[in-house]
């Protein structure tokens, strides 16, 4: 059960090898988190994360191999992971791929792959877990969106559009969950130094997984519906959203 500070005792993480998810889990294990199911494609990577978490204390970590685009196994994975935990206090949705904008934009299959993973598959996973939370009458879903989806840029419009879609879907689902006992929090990080962005040039307001995790945990304690990380991006994008296209186009990055 989540406690008065919004701290969970159990969690399912979809995209269990995500650097941001790992940092969030480390912070939560230091509070109340004791049982975790890590779901992801990379079996070896999941095992490594499980091992890294178990060093932190007497916690149980299970792993399940699953690709969010695998609709055939979705039902089984959701039912199985929920059953292992009994009560699902937290569903952390962190699955996602960045793709490679410069080659993807002329490759229809690559575009479909990014959108199917980041939007279609993830939205299906969210829908399945929302039903679990609704039926148990409590629990929180956290969805990793991105500022890239707030106003999609030319420089990464494939990834940006996938996150724009996901963000809109999550906002709608958060409203739909009101009164159900369950809740949904959206996280919009800026440029984060992770395995995903390795080798890329940092954007302004670049941050780290640890800093994002701190913002996420603070958002959980305060029941914040949308967490921007770092916080000032909320204001930056309030302005960015309104810039005329001619100006927006000239921005670096």
């Amino acid at each position: 059960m989540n406690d008065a500070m919004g701290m969970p005792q159990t969690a399912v993480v979809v995209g269990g090898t995500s650097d941001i998810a790992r940092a969030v889990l480390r912070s939560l294990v230091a509070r109340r988190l004791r049982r975790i199911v890590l779901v992801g494609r990379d079996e070896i990577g999941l095992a490594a994360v499980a091992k890294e978490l178990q060093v932190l204390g007497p916690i149980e970590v299970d792993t399940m191999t699953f690709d969010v685009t695998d609709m055939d196994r979705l039902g089984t994975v959701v039912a199985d992971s929920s059953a292992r935990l009994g009560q699902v206090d937290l569903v952390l949705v962190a699955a996602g791929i960045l793709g490679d904008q410069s080659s993807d934009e002329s490759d229809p299959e690559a575009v479909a792959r990014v959108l199917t993973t980041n939007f279609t598959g993830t939205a299906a996973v969210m829908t399945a877990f929302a039903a679990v939370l609704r039926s148990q009458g409590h629990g929180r879903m956290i969805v990793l969106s991105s500022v890239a989806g707030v106003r999609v840029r030319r420089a990464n419009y494939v990834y940006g559009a996938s996150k724009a879609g996901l963000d809109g879907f999550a906002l709608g689902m958060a409203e739909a969950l009101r009164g159900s006992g369950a809740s949904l929090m959206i996280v919009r990080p800026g440029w984060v130094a992770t395995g995903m962005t390795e080798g890329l040039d940092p954007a302004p307001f670049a941050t780290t997984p640890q800093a994002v995790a701190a913002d996420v945990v603070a958002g959980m304690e305060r029941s914040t519906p949308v967490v921007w990380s770092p916080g000032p991006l909320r204001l930056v994008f309030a302005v960015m959203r309104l810039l005329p296209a001619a100006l927006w186009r000239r921005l670096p990055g």
Partner: protein
Amino acid sequence: MTADGVAARHTPGVRRSLTGWGRTAPSACDVSEVHTAEDLDTVLAGATHSKRSVVARGLGRSYGDAAQCAGGVVIDMTGLDTVLEADLDTGVVRMGAGTSLDALMRAFVPRGWFVPVTPGTRHVTVGGAIAADIHGKNHHRDGSFCSYVTRLSLATPSGRVEVSPQSDPDLFWATAGGMGLTGIVVDATVQMVRIETATMRVDTERAQNLDDCLTRMTEHDGDYRYSVAWIDCLARGAKMGRAVLTRADHARLEDLPPARRADALCFNPVVGAQVPITPPSGLVNPVTVAAFNELWFRKAPRSRTGELQSMATYFHPLDGVGSWNRMYGARGFVQYQFVVPFGAEEALRAVLTRLSQRRMASFVTVLKRFGPADPGPLSFPIEGWTLAFDLPVGPLSTGPLLDALDEIVAGAGGRVYLAKDSRLRPELLEAMYPRLAEWRATRQRIDPAGVFASDLSRRLDLVSTPRTGRASRPSRARASAKTKTKAKEVATP
């Protein structure tokens, strides 16, 4: 309405999101209102049959998650509010478990009988008072509520049982403070206490610091039936723990001015104001609380004896403001109450030091001495010092601070109050309640299938035996079909 319609009304239907009085950690459940004992049996049987978890709820004054059951059935007991029998010569009253202490006072104070124990609010039910084995300002002298319960009727999955401290002491005392997890109290018989007037004779004095306060309480609490100290939680240094002591007895008839003696038992408290909206969180902060505390301390007389106050003013000042819990804003608040044994005054001092140094702003911080414990294995009061305070949820230091206080309390042989808890680390439960296994055994006998559960019981693993460092299992899932993508699976940039 057809017979089917009546049955339908009592099958769980209304999905509602509930919280405790602290307005934190909401969860949704099906709320069933019951109006007769038979309704209750029907709902309980239905839920048991469909393997759903059940917990009873009274007036929702537990601060945390004791009276909610996510995804299960919550039985609203406030319809069982009938006084069933009353002997005005002996003060023995039998009433439905949903009867509030407010209703009992309104009915029986004019007849010269007062409830044996009252907490800081009248708006609790008798069932809730038993489930939390509540205490009042007279604990140092009179003990807790269940010491005055002579018999209760308990609805269990296998049917109704009549329980008294003599007939089945294990079950009776497991129910006292058992947080509603040993069965649902349907009705109870309570021994009321005789009073001559509805007025309190109150002595007030100030203590300049914690030592002064503890000394005054230790030396003179025994002279009074009721005693409590309000503490300025923000005062530091030499003033740390400065307090206003208010101690009282029921006024005798001759204490009243002659003009008031004719109507000495009149009891008619009114709710003055209502907090109309929920203000933004953050209104209760170190600045506003420091200002309030300074005012409150200075407003109190250095010493005043024999002041006549109404019962409502002395016992239930917060009942004068409707929905006062909204003051902490939408994020809600946590009430932390613990007790440490006499001799562990250093633990008490350590807690107060941390509160004042960290500028943790609590509106109401209350210190009291508990007398000897009753036999309930989960009953909160043990002989010693108990301190209670409220903290708003939101400031990020609140959670870790309270975790640190838990360690101090458990280390000193103390415990926190489950009726107020909403965030204890489950690992500490057994250290705080060493007779937990005994309680679990009795519970297991009454409810082997585990029908009774609450968000509290799940959060603290109260009912099941705790998992002891079970090793993680290897991945059981088969590898999914290989995908062709080359991109790494990672989070958002």
